[in-house]
């Protein structure tokens, strides 16, 4: 609701309008395929260390070898393979924790918006408490105690990110439950469950899809940040944040260790943001018409 970037809005000019969806969607599809097909397309074992080939530059630079398209790290591991397998870990964490957060926020939002009263007040207070502790600090504190693993990360990031879904869902439910068609359904004797599943849920599904889309790269960025702080995915599992982190000490001589995985991360986030913004514009009829 808060944004109105003007775009070529006329129906007979589809080319410009569709560009963000094509570019963003293309990037997202490419990265998802990369993650799914990792075992097939990865040229090397991401964990195999070939010490004589350590710190090889990318193939297009002097000293590079076509066997290692994007070069090798300090342990002689192929960067391209590590980026490909890393996309798998990153996407898994992103998708799973977003689904967990969305499930919690959707349930609490439906409950609070539909029941209102003390249930709404209670969940609202919990939301206020959650909001006072930035997710990064909560994650740092919890991971410090329970230790870091992919599962712990998913639980912390998922449980810590319900707030956004909750707020959006609650707001929409509050508005939708007063609409005439909901009142009509109630008048003819539809139960709470039927009203929620048949009349309210379909109307908020669009918003949920958009938030989930936009949140996945945020979680991936976040995990990468945690890994950078030494608290994310434990070694030797390749993950984009870990790859960026591992290159830190070699930045001056072997910049590709850091900048190549970083480029993949930035490109993916950019792609999802383009796609998510375009989807949001499409799904929001108010903005579609001006």
């Amino acid at each position, binding site marked *: 609701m808060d944004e109105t970037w003007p775009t070529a809005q006329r129906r007979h000019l589809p080319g410009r309008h569709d560009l963000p969806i094509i570019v963003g969607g293309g990037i997202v599809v490419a990265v998802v395929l990369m993650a799914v097909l990792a075992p097939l397309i990865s040229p090397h074992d991401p964990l195999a260390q070939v010490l004589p080939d350590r710190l090889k530059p990318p193939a297009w630079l002097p000293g590079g070898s076509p066997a290692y398209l994007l070069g090798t790290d300090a342990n002689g591991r192929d960067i391209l393979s590590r980026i490909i397998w890393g996309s798998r870990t990153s996407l898994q964490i992103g998708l799973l924790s977003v689904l967990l957060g969305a499930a919690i926020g959707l349930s609490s939002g439906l409950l609070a918006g539909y029941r209102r009263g003390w249930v709404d007040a209670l969940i609202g207070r919990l939301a206020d408490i959650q909001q006072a502790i930035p997710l990064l600090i*909560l994650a*740092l504190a919890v991971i410090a105690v329970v230790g870091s693993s992919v599962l712990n990360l998913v639980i912390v990031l998922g449980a810590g990110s319900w707030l956004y879904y909750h707020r959006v869902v609650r707001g929409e439910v509050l508005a939708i439950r007063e609409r005439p068609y909901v009142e009509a359904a109630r008048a003819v004797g539809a139960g709470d469950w039927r009203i929620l599943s048949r009349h309210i849920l379909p109307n908020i599904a669009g918003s949920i899809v958009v938030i989930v889309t936009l949140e996945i790269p945020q979680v991936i960025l976040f995990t990468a940040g945690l890994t950078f702080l030494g608290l994310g995915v434990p070694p030797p599992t390749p993950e984009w944040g870990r790859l960026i982190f591992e290159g830190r000490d070699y930045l001056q001589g072997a910049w590709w260790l850091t900048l190549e995985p970083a480029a993949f991360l930035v490109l993916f986030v950019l792609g999802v943001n383009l796609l998510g913004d375009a989807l949001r514009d499409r799904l929001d009829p108010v903005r579609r018409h001006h």
Partner: protein
Amino acid sequence: MRASDYAVPHMVWFLVRRLLANAVVVLGVAFIVFALVFLASDPARALLPLDAPPAAIESLRRTLGFDQPIPIQFVGFLGRAIQGDFGTSTRTLEPALGLVLGRVPATLSLGIAGVCVALVIALPLGIVAAMRPGSWVDVVARSVALVGQAVPGFVLGQVLILLFAVTWRLLPVSGSGSPAYLVLPAIVVGLGSAAGLTRILRSSLLDVLGRDYIRTARAKGVGPRRVVVRHALRNAAIPFVTFLAFDLAAIVSGVIIVEVVFSYPGMGLLVVQAVTNRDLPVIQAFTFVAALTIVTVNLGLDVVYGLLDPRIRLG
């Protein structure tokens, strides 16, 4: 609930309501900080250095009352927290809260410098983009916003170190001391929030510029610059300030990561080292201080809104 129709009693009620709500939040945060210990299999173990003798663990277990019911333990924790006692660092054996508060000036100056950088970028870009939607400035603003939201601070920080500190040797790589040490970290913190701020300012200005009173002002012959400065900016300020407040958590998180990238000795570096050392009292003290800061800032903003906008105060 309302004592009268005068604004002052409303404001008092509003303040009381907000204070009570925030007290509940602080209590909840305290409980989470307290409960952290119980995520560990042995709380007393988690609070002491790894090489602590069994006798010391047993004695701490009794001192902190881990054998007592949880509500009583929580009351004890609250009592100590109110006196500023979060225990001692398992590393340096200094009081945890003192260690955290000692880093406040460094982190605060980085945060303020970062917000200044963000405003210097977002204000002109957002205003010009809203005045001329579709122009090249608008395109630049949109690109800055898109890319700024996609590049994580730890990547940008490393690239800036590589360029400005290592290759061109213009600025120090890391550490603190002179203002020069603040330049690169502040730029990274600032660029992180500039993207969102530019988007919000542009969209809320565009929204305001379409309103009737702006058309009236224009019809009266007020120039475009004056329309924006005198009429539009004031009304676009509320969403902008709201976003800045909402962004506070993101700024705090950004500062933590930037401090680690630049080895800048603030609270963030302290807490990340504490996490590495499993120094739980320092983590607890830091979490509480950070949450209390955010709650206080939000309360202050609530009051400002209440004064600015009667609809919020009376709602």
